[in-house]
C-alpha cells in the first residue's frame, strides 16, 4: 500500500461546492458520417498520389527544392526549427514577389491573405516576416508530402547512409538536382538572391519585382528547362526505381487490400494517407497512376474545356467519360467515375441525414426529453414530405419504376431524373436538402451503377472507410433490400438505421472531447443536439490542383479572348503529347 502525501491547501473552505465547467468542446464536426474520409484518405491518395488539394502550383516544387538546397549549401544549422524559420521567411518574401508580379498574373501565393494587405499599402520597402504560423510554412502544409512522395525530398528521420537525416534534405538524384538547378538558374542574377535573401532588413519593392520577373509562379510555363524539370519531378522516376509503362505499371494503386471490402480491419490514415511516405517499391505504381490520372484529366479538356474552371462540369465529365484510348485509360476513367459515384451517394445520404437531424431535434425539443427508439423510427419513416413529396406507403420498387419511366423529377431539375445528368441530380438534392430527394438520387445512382462493371470502377467502388461501407457494398445492400419490397417509409428508416444512426455516434465518440454529436443515445433515449443541423460538405476531388498544375506545365492554355468570345481551355502540343504518351 502506498502512502498519501499531504496536498496543498484549498483556497476555499472544505466542502464548499463548486459549479461544474465543461470539458467537452462543442464543435460541428465536418464529417459526421465518415464519408469525407473515404474520399480524402482512401480514394484521392490512390487516384492522384502525390498531389494534395492545396499543392496547386507546380513552381512551388522547384522553389522549395531550391530552398532546401540553399539551406544545405549555406551549411545552416541542421535542426528543424532553423530550417522552418528559413523556409517561412523565404516563402514570405516569395509571396510578396508573386503579389507584385510585373506580369499581372494574379497568382495566389502561400500566405496570400496576410501578404495582400501589406502589398496594398504600396510601400517602397516591405517588412520581413514569415509566411504562415505552422511549422515549415507552406512547404510543411502543402508541398512537403508531395515532394517526399515524388522522391525529391528525404524527410527528417529518413535513413540516409548509415544514419537518419535530422532535417529534410534533397535526395541525391538527377531529378532533384535538375529541379534545383533550373530554379537557381532562373533567379541567379536577381538582386534579391545576391544581396537580400539572407538579410533581415526591409526589402525594397523593386528588388521583389525584379525577383518576381523571373521567379513568379506564372513564369514556369515560359521556362522550358525548369518546366521539364518539374514535369519530370511529377511524372518521372529515378533510374533506380524501375521502368514503368502506361500499359503495365508495376503495381496498381487500388491493389492494396487494407481498406477494401474484403479487409477485416479497415484503417484510417493508414500508410495510404497523403501524409505518409510511401516505400520506394510503391513509387512506380504511384507514378503510373499520376500519369494516367493527369492524362485522363487532359483528355476531358479536349471534350469539355470547362472542366478546368467548373467543378460540376468536372464531376459530370469524370462520371460520363466514355471514349477511351486504351484499356489503361478505361481503367483510370472507371476509377474516377467511382469517385464521383461516391460523392453522389454522400450527398444523397446527406439529404436524408440533414432532414432526419432537423426533424429529430424539433421532436425532442417539444418533449424536452430524448426520443425512444420507436419515436426515432417514426421520425425517419415520415421523412417523406419532400420536396418532392412521396407517399410513405409507396413501394420503393414502384418508385424505381416511376423513375425509370421518367415520371419523377426533382424541383429545379430540367426534365426527369431518369434523363438528367448525374451531377444535376446530385446538385438538386444538395440544393433541396430533403430526404426524398436524397432517396430518389440514391435510387437513380443505384440504377446507373448497376450498368457498370469495368475494372477501374469496381476497384474504386470497393474502397471503404473505417466508418462506412464501400459504395459497392451499399449498392449490394440496396439491391438485396429492394428484393424485400419495402415501402418508401421503410426504406428511409432502413437507410437511417444502417448508415446514419449506427455510424454517427461511433464517429462522434471517437472525437471526444470534441463534442460533435448531432444526436446521441442517453439512457435508452435519443437526444438530438443543435450542433450544426445542416449539410456537411463533399471532400475536395482535386479539380483545382489538376487545372493549375497542368496549366503551369503548359499542358493546356486559354485561348485568346477574341476567338471565341470567352477564353477557353485548349490543349497545347505538350498536352496532346502527354495524353498520347500515357493513354495510348
Amino acid at each position: 500500500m502506498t502512502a498519501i502525501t499531504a496536498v496543498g491547501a484549498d483556497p476555499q473552505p472544505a466542502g464548499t461546492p463548486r459549479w461544474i465547467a465543461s470539458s467537452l468542446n462543442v464543435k460541428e464536426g465536418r464529417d459526421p458520417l465518415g464519408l469525407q474520409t473515404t474520399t480524402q484518405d482512401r480514394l484521392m491518395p490512390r487516384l492522384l498520389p502525390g498531389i494534395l488539394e492545396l499543392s496547386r502550383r507546380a513552381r512551388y516544387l522547384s522553389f522549395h527544392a531550391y530552398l532546401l538546397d540553399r539551406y544545405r549549401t549555406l551549411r545552416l544549422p541542421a535542426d528543424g526549427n532553423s530550417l522552418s524559420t528559413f523556409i517561412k521567411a523565404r516563402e514570405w518574401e516569395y509571396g510578396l514577389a508573386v503579389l507584385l508580379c510585373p506580369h499581372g498574373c494574379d497568382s495566389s501565393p502561400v500566405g496570400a491573405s496576410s501578404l495582400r494587405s501589406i502589398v496594398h499599402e504600396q510601400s517602397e520597402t516591405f517588412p520581413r516576416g514569415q509566411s504562415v504560423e505552422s511549422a515549415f510554412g507552406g512547404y510543411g502544409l502543402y508541398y512537403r508530402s508531395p515532394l517526399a512522395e515524388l522522391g525529391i525530398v528525404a524527410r527528417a528521420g529518413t535513413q540516409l547512409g548509415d544514419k537518419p537525416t535530422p532535417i529534410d534534405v534533397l535526395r541525391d538524384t538527377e531529378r532533384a538536382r535538375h529541379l534545383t538547378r533550373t530554379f537557381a538558374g532562373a533567379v541567379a542574377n536577381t538582386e534579391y538572391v545576391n544581396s537580400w535573401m539572407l538579410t533581415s532588413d526591409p526589402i525594397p519593392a523593386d528588388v521583389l519585382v525584379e525577383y518576381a520577373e523571373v521567379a513568379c509562379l506564372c513564369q514556369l510555363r515560359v521556362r522550358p528547362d525548369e518546366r521539364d524539370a518539374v514535369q519530370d519531378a511529377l511524372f518521372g522516376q529515378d533510374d533506380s526505381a524501375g521502368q514503368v509503362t502506361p500499359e503495365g505499371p508495376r503495381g496498381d494503386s487500388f491493389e492494396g487490400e487494407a481498406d477494401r471490402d474484403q479487409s477485416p480491419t479497415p484503417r484510417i490514415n493508414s500508410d495510404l494517407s497523403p501524409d505518409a511516405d510511401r516505400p520506394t517499391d510503391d513509387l512506380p505504381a504511384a507514378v503510373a497512376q499520376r500519369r494516367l490520372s493527369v492524362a485522363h484529366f487532359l483528355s476531358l479538356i479536349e471534350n469539355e474545356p470547362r472542366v478546368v474552371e467548373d467543378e460540376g462540369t468536372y464531376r459530370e465529365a469524370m462520371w460520363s467519360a466514355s471514349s477511351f484510348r486504351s484499356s489503361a485509360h478505361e481503367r483510370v476513367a472507371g476509377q474516377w467515375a467511382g469517385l464521383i459515384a461516391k460523392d453522389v451517394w454522400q450527398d444523397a445520404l446527406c439529404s436524408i441525414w440533414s432532414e432526419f437531424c432537423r426533424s429529430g431535434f424539433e421532436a425532442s425539443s417539444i418533449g424536452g426529453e430524448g426520443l425512444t427508439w420507436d419515436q426515432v423510427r417514426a421520425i425517419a419513416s415520415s421523412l417523406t414530405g419532400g420536396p418532392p413529396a412521396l407517399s410513405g406507403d409507396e413501394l420503393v420498387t414502384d418508385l424505381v419504376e416511376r423513375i425509370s419511366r421518367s415520371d419523377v423529377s426533382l424541383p429545379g431539375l430540367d426534365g426527369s431524373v431518369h434523363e438528367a445528368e448525374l451531377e444535376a441530380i446530385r446538385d438538386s438534392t444538395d440544393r433541396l436538402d430533403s430526404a426524398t430527394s436524397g432517396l430518389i438520387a440514391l435510387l437513380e445512382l443505384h440504377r446507373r451503377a448497376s450498368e457498370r462493371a469495368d475494372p477501374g470502377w469496381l476497384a474504386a467502388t470497393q474502397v471503404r472507410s473505417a466508418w462506412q461501407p464501400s459504395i459497392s457494398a451499399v449498392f449490394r445492400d440496396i439491391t438485396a433490400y429492394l428484393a424485400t419490397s419495402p415501402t418508401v417509409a421503410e426504406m428511409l428508416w432502413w437507410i437511417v438505421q444502417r448508415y446514419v444512426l449506427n455510424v454517427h455516434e461511433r464517429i462522434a465518440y471517437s472525437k471526444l472531447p470534441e463534442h460533435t454529436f448531432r444526436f446521441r443515445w442517453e439512457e435508452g433515449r435519443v437526444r438530438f443536439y443543435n450542433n450544426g443541423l445542416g449539410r456537411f460538405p463533399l471532400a475536395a476531388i482535386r479539380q483545382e490542383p489538376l487545372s493549375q498544375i497542368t496549366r503551369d506545365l503548359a499542358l493546356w492554355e486559354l485561348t485568346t479572348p477574341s476567338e471565341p468570345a470567352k477564353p477557353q481551355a485548349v490543349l497545347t502540343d505538350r498536352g496532346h503529347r502527354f495524353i498520347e504518351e500515357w493513354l495510348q
Partner: protein
Amino acid sequence: MSDGPTLQISPITELFRGDRVALWATTYNVDLDLFNNYLLSRLGEPPLNVVVIADRDRLDSTLELLPPDRLASLGPVNRRWLLRGARLGTGRFHPKSYLAVTGRSVKLLVGSGNLSTSGLDAGREVFAVFAAGTPQGDAAIRTWMSWMRRIVSELDDTMLAERFSDLEERIPRIDSVSVVVESPLWHNLDLPLADQFCDRVLARGELVDELIVTAPYYDETGDALGRLLMRLKPQRLTVYTAASTKVDGTKLEARLAAADAEVRTFAYLPEAFTHAKLIGAVSRDHGWLMSGSANLSNAALSFRAGPAGTGNVELAVVADLPADELRRAFLPPDTQAEERPLTSLATLAFEPSPDASPVPLFHISRATSLPDGRVEITASPPPDDSLRLADHNDTRTLAIGSGRAVTTGVLAGPIVHLVDRANERVSNHSIVEDPESLRRVLQSGEKSSASGRPSELTTSDLDTPLGQALLYLQQNVVMDVSETAGSGGGSDTTRSETQESDADDNLWDRLEREKLGQDPRAGAYARLIRPPASVELGEPLIELLDAMRERVPSEHSPEQTLLRRISGPIRLDNPASGTPWSTSARIRVRARNVLRRWASVQTDPRLTWVDPLAPLGNLALIAATFAQLWRYNAEPGFDAGLTEDDLDDLWLEWIRRFVGTGQGDGLLSNSVLTEGEIRSRLGGDFARNVTVLCWLAIRPGRNRRQRIVEWQPVLRGVLDQDLVEVGDDTVEFLVASGFKVSADAVETDILEALEFIDDDLWCAQRSAELALAGLELKATSAGDRTGIRIMVDGIDDPLHDPRIPALVVSISRYRGTDTVAIFGKNPDWRLAISGDEPIYYMASLHADGVESEHLEPNALDSLAGAAGVIADLFPASARSA
C-alpha cells in the same frame, strides 16, 4: 450580492484519468453509452476497479428502453466494470458521489451531478471536492468508505463486496492526519439530513437571519421547505428558481406567503435547467451550506434512508462559510439572478415521478454467466420452475435447486429477463455479468498473488534454487491467504463501524469464502492430502530443487536431466544449461522473511476456507523443502540459500504452530484428522522429514543445550502428535545430509532432548510456571544432610503465597532432597524446610524467626495439590509475623 471569483471544476477531467486504479460512483441515473464509449477509455488499462451503483428502478427503466439493435453497446458492462442497481427501503438511490483512486492519491467528489453528460459536464451542477491528505478530505473519505460498506452490505452481493474489498486495498494508506476533524460528509442512513442540518445550525444558539435555497425538485406543495422554515425560523428566506423547477408554484407561493419570514425570490438568467441542490443558513456573518444530492423534498431531507427508512439514499456535504461566500455560492458562473415577485412562483409546475413504470413480478438483481455458458440468476422472489430465462434470441428453462436458479442451456445475453409460460416478460432486464472477466480486470498487472512471486522477492532472486522453490510454492499452494482474500475487509475503523450499526456481516465472510474457494490453487490440496495418498504436488518441488542443484557448478554431475522430466509443470525462467545461479546474501534475508510470513499466517482460520487441510498441506511441503535444503547444504560447493541456523529457526517457526508446546495448543490438536490419518495421507516422507528436521534441530554440536531447551516443548508436541518415526530412510537421509548417525542414536537423542533438564532450565521452567521474577539454585550442606538453597524473586509474603508449597515440592522432586532453604530476594525473608521438622520462617533477615507446627507426612504435597499456603501450618500467632 458581492462579487468574487467562482472556482469551478470539470468532473470528467478531474475524475477520469489514465492513472486511476479505481473509480467508484454512486448516481441516480447512468449514461451507459457515455461511460462505455468515452469515460471508461479515459481511465486507462487494468488493473482497474470500476463500479457504478445506480438507482435500481431508474436503471431498469433505462434497460427497458434499450432496443435490440443497441445491445452491443452494453459490451463492457459487467465485463470490464461492474454496474449494480440499488434499492434500500422504499426511497430512491439518489447519491451522486465519485471516488477516484490512484497509487498515491484519493479524490472524492460529492454533489448534484449524475453520471451523464449533463451531470458531469454540461449542466448547472455543483460538486464538493475532497482529497486525501487533508484533515477534512481524510474525514470525508473515511465517512464515504464506511457509508459504502454499509450500502454494499445491504445489497448483499458478493461480487460487489469483492470489489469493495479490493477498493479498500487500493486506497493508499493515509499517513499524516495531524488534526482530527468532524466529517463534512453526511449521509441519511441513520438521521435525516434536515435534522443534521438544523441541529448544526441551531447548535450555535443564534437566530437564523436568512435561509437560502435552490433545488430542481420539491415536494408538490413545498412541504420539506416548510419544515425547514418551522425549525430554523429564519428572518428572511431567499429562493432561487429556474423555469424548470418542479413544484406546484401556487401552493408554494401560498406556503411562503404564510411563513413568518421575509421572502425574496430570484430567477436564474439565462434560463437553463438548474440541477444543483443547495441549502444555506446564515447567522450574522456566519453561514452553513449544505450541498449534495438532496432535493427540497421530504424523501430527500426529512426522512431516514435505508432498509427500514422511507427516504431516498442521499449524500450531503456541509461547509462552514462566511455569509458572503455562502451567498455567492448560489450563483452559477455566467449567470445572473433576477429578483422576481413572490407571485412569479405560480408559473412553476409540479411534475410527478417520471419513473412510474409498472413494477414487474420478479426482480433479477444479478445474472451471472457460468463457464459453460449457462446463466445463473438471483431474483426476488426466487423464481420457480414454471419460469424461463430469456435473452433477445433464446429462452431457456431454469433448473431450480439448492437455492440456485440456473438455465439448462447456454444463453448468450447480454441482457436477460424472466418469462412465464405464456412467454410474457415478468421481470426486469438484467445485464449478465462475466465473473472471470471482471476478476481479470482487477488482477491484471503485477501483484503478488498466485500469478506472481512472493512480494519480498526480487526478480533476480528467482535465479536461485531457493527463489524458484518459493515461487513454486507461491504458484501452487495458498501459503498466505490474505493475498487472495485481502486484508480481511479493510480498515478496522470501517469494519467496526459497520458492525456497530449492522450486525449482519456475513456477506464479508461469504465473500472471502467464495474468493478463496475459487483460488485455482485450492485444488492442489486434494492431490496432496486426499486419499489415496499422493505427493504429486510435492514431488515436482523436490525435483525442481534437484534440478536447480544440478545447474550449480559442482563436483556432482547428474546422470540424467531431471529438469527435462519436470519441465512440464515447472517453468524455469532462465533455463540456459550450465548457467551458474547467482546467489547472494540478500536472497537469504528475503527468503527468511517470506518463510516467516508464511509461517505466521498458517493459523489464519480463513486458510481452512481454501481447504480444511490446507495448513497441513503447507506444512508438508515446507518440511520437504527444508529437508531438501539441508541435504544440499551438505554438498560441497552448494549454497542452498539458507544456513543451518536459518533452517532450525524457520522450522521452529513452522512446526510449533502446528504441534504447540505439548499443551494441546497447536493446530494439529484441533485437526479433523487423527495422528494416524495425518501420517497415512501425507505419506511416509512427511514423518521422515519431520523427524529429520527435529533431530537436526537438536543435533549434537554448537549451542546444543540452548537448542534443546528451545525445542523441548515443541518436541513434546511433535511426539504427542506421533509425528516422529525413525526408520532406515531417516538415517539414509541424515547420512546424505552429512550426519553419520544410527536409528537408535536419532531416537535416543530426541528422547533425551525431551527429558533434558538442568538447574538453569529447571529454574527457568519453574519461574515461568509460577510466574516468578527469578529463581536461583545453590547446593548446600546442612549438617549430615545435603540440601538446596533457592533464591526467589517475586514473592512478597511466603506464608500466604500458594506458590511456595508448589515450589518446595517441585525442588524436592527435582533434586531428591527434603531439605530446602528458600531465600527471598526482595524482601529478604527466609524459609527453612527439612523433612517433617517444623518450618522455620523469618520475615526478614533481621526479624525474629517463628516455627510452624510439626508437619504431618506429605503435608506440603497436600498443600501444593490444594493450592494451599504454608501459613496454615503455623500457629495463628505466628501467621501475622
